[in-house]
């Protein structure tokens, strides 16, 4: 049996933001067809890891390869679909749902060529997968937040990629829309796509996940069987600073504002 290289290979990767190490010595391999959930508390580095994997964050050390090619030399962006973390899909000028989804097709279009038949078919298919085919001509700004999130997923889908990165697609999305999202992702998984999903909570996506990676303070603390939402917040994975003893039982004394940091110089906590 031939040894196939993993779809994503992260080895010893670290990322610095503003001089502070945010990701440290990350090793991760994702195989073809994996459905991986990257979980963890706010600020644990899960979004940063995804952004490093698609080249939006430069590495301070280590290496990332996609489809066996180091990120610096990687050119086959049509194989990758990215759904960034966004409050919405709207910008300063109106745009129709169709137009936003069509921009996902740019990974496969040549300069100055009009949309071909294959392009239109892929855009229509992407809209059908997320259940918004009937809204194609509407302005994105008129859609609800959850529907806009589905538009962004359709945009990534339109390029017909094999590998998906989704950064918190369920954040601030109501339950019916989360179910619609889950249906769309189930279809993608059925087509054999590799999916890396950043999520704070999985909700209706939980049954799809084949592997959970939990991050804490810039490191991977769990990599393996899928975890339920409550397990992620298990003390073993909890915030690095909880072993410090805060004294919650004592009253604060007064409600006057605490001027602990004149000139913005914060003393070390604890």
């Amino acid at each position, binding site marked *: 049996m031939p040894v196939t290289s993993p779809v994503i290979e992260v080895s010893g990767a670290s990322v610095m933001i503003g001089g502070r190490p945010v990701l440290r010595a990350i090793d991760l391999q994702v195989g073809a067809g994996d459905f991986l959930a990257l979980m963890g508390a706010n600020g644990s580095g899960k979004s940063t890891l995804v952004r490093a994997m*698609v*080249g*939006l964050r430069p590495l301070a050390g280590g290496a990332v390869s996609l489809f066996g090619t180091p990120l610096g030399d990687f*050119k086959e*962006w*049509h194989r*990758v679909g*990215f759904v*960034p973390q*966004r409050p919405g*899909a709207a*910008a*300063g*000028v*109106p*745009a*129709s749902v*169709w*137009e*936003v989804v*069509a*921009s*996902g097709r*740019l*990974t496969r*279009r040549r*300069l*100055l060529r009009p949309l071909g038949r294959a392009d239109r078919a892929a855009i229509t298919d992407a809209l059908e997968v997320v259940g918004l085919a009937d809204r194609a*001509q*509407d*302005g994105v700004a*008129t859609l609800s937040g959850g529907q806009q999130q589905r538009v*962004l997923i359709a*945009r*990534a889908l339109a*390029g017909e990629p094999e590998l998906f*990165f989704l950064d918190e697609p369920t954040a601030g999305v109501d339950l019916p829309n989360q179910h619609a999202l889950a249906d769309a992702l189930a279809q993608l998984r059925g087509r054999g796509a590799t999916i890396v999903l950043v999520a704070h909570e999985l909700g209706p996506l939980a049954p799809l996940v084949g592997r959970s990676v939990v991050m804490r303070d810039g490191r991977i603390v769990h990599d393996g069987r899928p975890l339920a939402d409550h397990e992620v917040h298990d003390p073993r994975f909890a915030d690095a600073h909880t072993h410090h003893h805060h004294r919650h039982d004592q009253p604060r004394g007064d409600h006057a504002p605490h001027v602990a940091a004149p000139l913005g110089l914060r003393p070390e906590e604890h």
Partner: protein
Amino acid sequence: MSDLIDLFQHQFMQRALIAAVITGLAAPAVGTYLVQRRLALMGDGIGHVAVTGVAIGLLTGTSPTWTAVVVAILGAIVIELIRERGAAGGDVALALLFYGGLAGGVLLTGIGGQATAALQGFLFGSITTVAVADLLAVLVLATVIVVVGVGLAPQLFAVAQDQEFAQVAGLNVRFYNMLVATLAAVSVTVAMRTVGLLLVSALMVVPVAASQQLTRSFRTTLAAAMAIGAVVSLSGVVVSAYASFSATVATGPTIVILALACFLVTWPVGSLMRRRRRLAEPFPVEEVDDHHVLCEQHVHEHGPECGHLAVEHGDHVDYVHDGHRHAVHVEAGSKHYDEH
């Protein structure tokens, strides 16, 4: 009226008309991308920087059009770099550049011994003094802007809509950002002769603001903005020429006022359209079994002609009035209304 026709027999007026139309087409073509990025005032900033370019042209005796193009492009690239760095004080840095450009321009003009009146024509436009060489330059530059702005629309749209997505899609985001900045600088200098550097931004932004009141897609917004720009520029020249028989009417401000008038017309129409669309949005169909609530006795018979707002609700229609949603319910041969 025949006076007006006589006036347009003059070559300088014909040149003015041609310059106005192509400027009106080109400026909103770039302006749409600036508005999409929420950088509506960038054109204004570049216009200020271009004042220095004009002054350098006046000082050195070279064509102010070309010195303005060069300085405006440099200014636009610096603005773009500042924006890209994403510094929190980015808008302050931009302000420094704007006022530096304006002050520098006025100073240099004075040093060159030129009266500020020479600068005046560039600040507020002087379309009737467009020479043949200027007209050719404007034609060439405006054509480049329109071809690039429309031809690369899918790429420019994607980058302006969502920069991070565009980068992961393999587009050279930096190149396209610089391209838009350069196009903006070029259109500033193109529009300089028509509406003047201080009003340039209006011709880039106001047609977009007017057209987006009525449009739902980017493509129609772009096309409508270009059409509005061309129409107001053309009619601005004609109106100001006609009015010039009785008063001194500057062309640039006339064009801008006409563009604003377009906005004043489309805005109420647009908000009315949006309101009607929102009211007609079907009510969500949900499985609620307490729908069967008999409403109060009703002498009024609801129907297509009754004048109450009829909104789709699943397989039937609700009539909206006085905070109620009434649906017809026929039971045992008698008809009443349910509160939905």
